[in-house]
């Protein structure tokens, strides 16, 4: 099997981060030879890399996206089922292994699955449908125009004569794949737009669903790591003499990521790890502390950064005497992903020079490249098996756990499963970077905003990425890929080009304010940072939607109408922002009286091509905010599965409230302080509000929902707290900050 991505595919590839991800070149379908081979070897009709039809009518589709809870297994099945004229709940699903040829660069993230597959996946299914109809025409000696596909059969119109797809497998396999099949028009949809029950749910309620952590192999060993007390301190010396005598222990392997203790059972590895003596070297991060980076951010705020927007004359406005001026500094912490399934991978480096890896990953082809490079094997000797993911949120694109499993398996020449403890999972993050944002704004006597001056300090994510080499296509030599990767990384890190992920959500300018400036400092700390659900938007929406609220109050205007009026200056460009804003205001009863100590806050944000707004209702109890109700609106264009969209917004609300109220990753003496759910909490049932999600009915192109629900929730909450008790919380997490404000 070759793993070369064609040059044509590369040209279709955008950069992984934030952009639309390319869709593989396989929409042209399988060659005649491939189809014949599959028919002979497996007895199936498989016109492309996604669909397999067996003679017994079992239809399988291959999911080349990571199912991490966002529902792609079901939405992709629906797209295929629509054009293939079958019941989506009857589809069998296979999880695709890493396969550049078939699926291009496989990566799931950026809320891109629906927008990038909506048409292409329907094309592959429609092509299969047309081949089946053509096959039936041959089989029945009928005219294709008298036939149609319906319910897994090809039927002769106006008669009861029908042929199941399974009976057409051989004939269809011999036909050529149409390159431009007819797609259904939306008015013909029977499946798309309906709340099809999720295909993965039955296994998830019976314990049958297989996550990465559940992989079991004959002769598999377990590896537990001993980690340095300070970030990245190297191993200097290991004394494993006692550990090696313990029951079940196979080996103790020093690596650049700590010392792996390998045993037949994980509890044996854990006990043995307690008896290993490790001498650590000096950490490059020995002085790292939260106080240190906060001080550095504060200093950078005093200097102009790299400009992103500079319209009108912000400085002149700031000098005027006739305006009401405001200044606010917003601070957001580093955040960990806290997927409930801890990071893990299982690798089997075999004696014959091949390797298999089982890993819950958002990026199988990155995992392939990383695993092959780590094992020093050619890509075509390595197989990456995909599993279900117990949460991803961006964390499962980084493959550091894959590196560990491969290193250890190669060292011990046996299958090895690496499972991180919760403590490791919390501390070994690719964290959402911290952001410090200073806003200066002004409003005139009539309450119209005159200037907006925004300075952002944050660690560049793209400047941090160490896997540029892996996401470039493999027809580039390894050396070239490595060099291009390093160049891109250094450009981002040095601030020579602005990191778009640091600015996303900060440069959209939905509100019509003439004097407008945004500049940015890429603060290099070196802590591993990465994509955390909604990426730059997760932080940037907070200062924007809080400060617009502060300006509204300074202008003595209602925060909802103040926003609406500014959006409406260009009503056409902002119709969809206004749409979600109006919808939540209406459904939340904006303006209606609330009891004493209660407050409402509103926020809207555009991200990943979708529009979302929230109204949060809080009750202050003993000066602690309790979120009682959240009313949300989402506009993601044409909706594939309304129940899944609802679930994603509900989930994003809770994810976002967890961060806004409780979460921060702090550093002291060169180490992450937090370790488990007692000090890095997730919202619990008793804190969970009533959530009401309203879906905008739209026929616009479908866009994603994995992330768009998240950015506006923190500012809506902060605005609600202000409404309830008059306190502006500008630093998250909120509960810690409220305590500070009390003291």
């Amino acid at each position: 099997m070759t793993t070369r991505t064609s040059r044509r595919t590369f040209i279709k590839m955008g950069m992984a981060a934030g952009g639309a991800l390319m869709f593989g070149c396989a929409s042209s379908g399988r060659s005649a030879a491939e189809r014949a081979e599959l028919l002979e070897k497996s007895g199936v009709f498989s016109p492309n890399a996604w669909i397999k039809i067996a003679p017994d009518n079992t239809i399988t589709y291959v999911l080349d996206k990571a199912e991490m809870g966002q529902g792609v297994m079901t939405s992709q099945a629906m797209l295929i089922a629509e054009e293939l004229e079958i019941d989506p709940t009857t589809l069998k699903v296979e999880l695709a292994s890493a396969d550049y040829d078939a699926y291009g660069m496989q990566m799931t993230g950026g809320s891109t699955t629906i927008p990038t597959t909506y048409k292409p996946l329907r094309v592959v299914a429609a092509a299969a449908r047309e081949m089946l109809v053509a096959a039936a025409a041959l089989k029945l000696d009928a005219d294709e125009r008298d036939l149609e596909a319906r319910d897994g059969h090809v039927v002769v119109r106006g008669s009861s004569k029908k042929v199941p797809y399974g009976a057409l497998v051989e004939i269809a396999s011999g036909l050529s794949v149409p390159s431009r099949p007819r797609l259904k028009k939306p008015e013909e949809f029977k499946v798309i737009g309906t709340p099809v029950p999720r295909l993965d749910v039955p296994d998830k309620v019976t314990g049958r669903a297989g996550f990465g952590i559940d992989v079991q192999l004959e002769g598999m060993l377990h590896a537990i790591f001993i980690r340095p007390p300070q970030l990245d301190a190297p191993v200097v010396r290991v004394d494993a003499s006692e550990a090696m005598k313990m029951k079940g222990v196979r080996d103790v392997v020093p690596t650049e990521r700590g010392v792996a203790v390998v045993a037949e059972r994980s509890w044996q590895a854990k006990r043995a790890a307690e008896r290993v003596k490790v001498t650590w070297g000096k950490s490059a991060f020995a002085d790292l502390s939260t106080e240190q980076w906060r001080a550095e951010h504060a200093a950078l705020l005093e200097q102009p950064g790299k400009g992103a927007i500079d319209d009108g004359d912000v400085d002149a406005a700031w000098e005027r005497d006739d305006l009401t001026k405001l200044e606010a500094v917003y601070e957001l912490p580093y955040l960990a992903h806290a997927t409930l399934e801890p990071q893990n991978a299982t690798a089997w480096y075999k004696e014959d020079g091949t390797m298999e890896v089982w890993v819950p990953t958002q990026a199988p082809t990155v995992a392939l490249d990383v695993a092959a490079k780590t094992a020093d094997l050619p890509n075509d000797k390595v197989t990456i098996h995909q599993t279900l993911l117990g949460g991803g949120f961006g964390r499962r694109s980084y493959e550091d756990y894959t590196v560990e499993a491969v290193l250890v398996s190669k060292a011990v020449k046996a299958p090895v499963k690496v499972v991180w403890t919760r403590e490791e999972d919390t501390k070994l993050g690719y964290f959402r970077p911290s952001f410090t944002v200073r806003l200066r704004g002004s409003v005139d006597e009539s309450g119209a905003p005159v200037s907006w001056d925004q300075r952002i300090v944050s660690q560049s994510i793209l400047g941090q990425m160490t896997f540029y080499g892996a996401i470039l296509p493999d027809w580039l030599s390894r050396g070239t890929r490595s060099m291009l990767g390093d160049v891109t990384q250094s450009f981002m890190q040095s601030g020579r080009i602005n990191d778009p992920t640091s600015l996303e959500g900060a440069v959209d300018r939905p509100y019509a304010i003439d004097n407008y400036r945004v500049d940015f400092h890429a603060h290099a700390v070196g802590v591993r940072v990465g994509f955390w659900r909604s990426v730059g938007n997760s932080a940037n929406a907070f200062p924007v939607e809080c400060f617009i609220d502060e300006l509204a109050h300074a202008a003595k205007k209602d925060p909802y109408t103040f926003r609406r009026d500014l959006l409406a200056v260009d009503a056409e460009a902002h119709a969809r922002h206004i749409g979600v804003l109006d919808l939540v205001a209406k459904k939340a009863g904006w303006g209606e009286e609330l009891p004493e100590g209660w407050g409402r806050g509103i926020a809207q944000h555009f991200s990943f091509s979708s529009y979302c707004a929230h109204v949060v209702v809080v009750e202050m109890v003993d000066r602690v905010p309790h979120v009682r109700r959240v009313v949300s609106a989402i506009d993601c264009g044409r909706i594939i599965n309304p129940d899944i969209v609802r679930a994603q917004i509900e989930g994003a609300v809770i994810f976002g409230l967890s961060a806004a109220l409780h979460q921060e990753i702090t550093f002291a003496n060169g180490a992450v302080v937090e370790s488990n759910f007692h000090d890095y909490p997730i919202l619990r049932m008793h804190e969970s509000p009533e959530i009401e999600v309203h879906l905008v009915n739209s026929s616009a192109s479908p866009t994603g929902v994995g992330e768009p629900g998240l950015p506006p929730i923190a500012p809506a909450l902060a605005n609600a707290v202000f409404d309830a008790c008059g306190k502006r919380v500008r630093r998250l997490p909120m509960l810690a900050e409220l305590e500070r404000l009390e003291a």
Partner: protein
Amino acid sequence: MSDEIVFTINGDEVKVDVPADVPLLWVIREELGMMGTKFGCGQALCGACTVHLNGQAVRSCVRPVGSVRGEAILTIEGLADGDQLHPVQQAWIAENVPQCGYCQCGQIMSAVALLEAKPEPTDEDIDAVMSANLCRCGTYPRIRKAIKRAAASMAAAKHGGE
């Protein structure tokens, strides 16, 4: 010296030869190969490891296996009656509760114990018991609805209704 520990799991007697202080969770997963019970935190903070010990919901990640000698354990794999899913599992399906699904076996085991103790749970009852189970994906509103749905269907079944 062999240290065999004998207990019942999902109605079957098992014998395991591990030190008595090994947490039950790892015995279930690695000695018995049953993967439905999950590891999330190892400190009884997340509830993903929830099983029933003589009908009570317990966190198996901190329960030493020696302490369950002679006792009866129920895991998610033992909840259904053959092909017939437990009403809680059926309610979870009807409400499309799971997203990633990793926490859900623990959620279901906690919910089953809740309903056995309180067949008509109030929101406060649900809060009190289910706050022990974390869900990173944020399915709490649906869990609440599913518990109420299961309560209703279990009550109806009890009274001989549909």
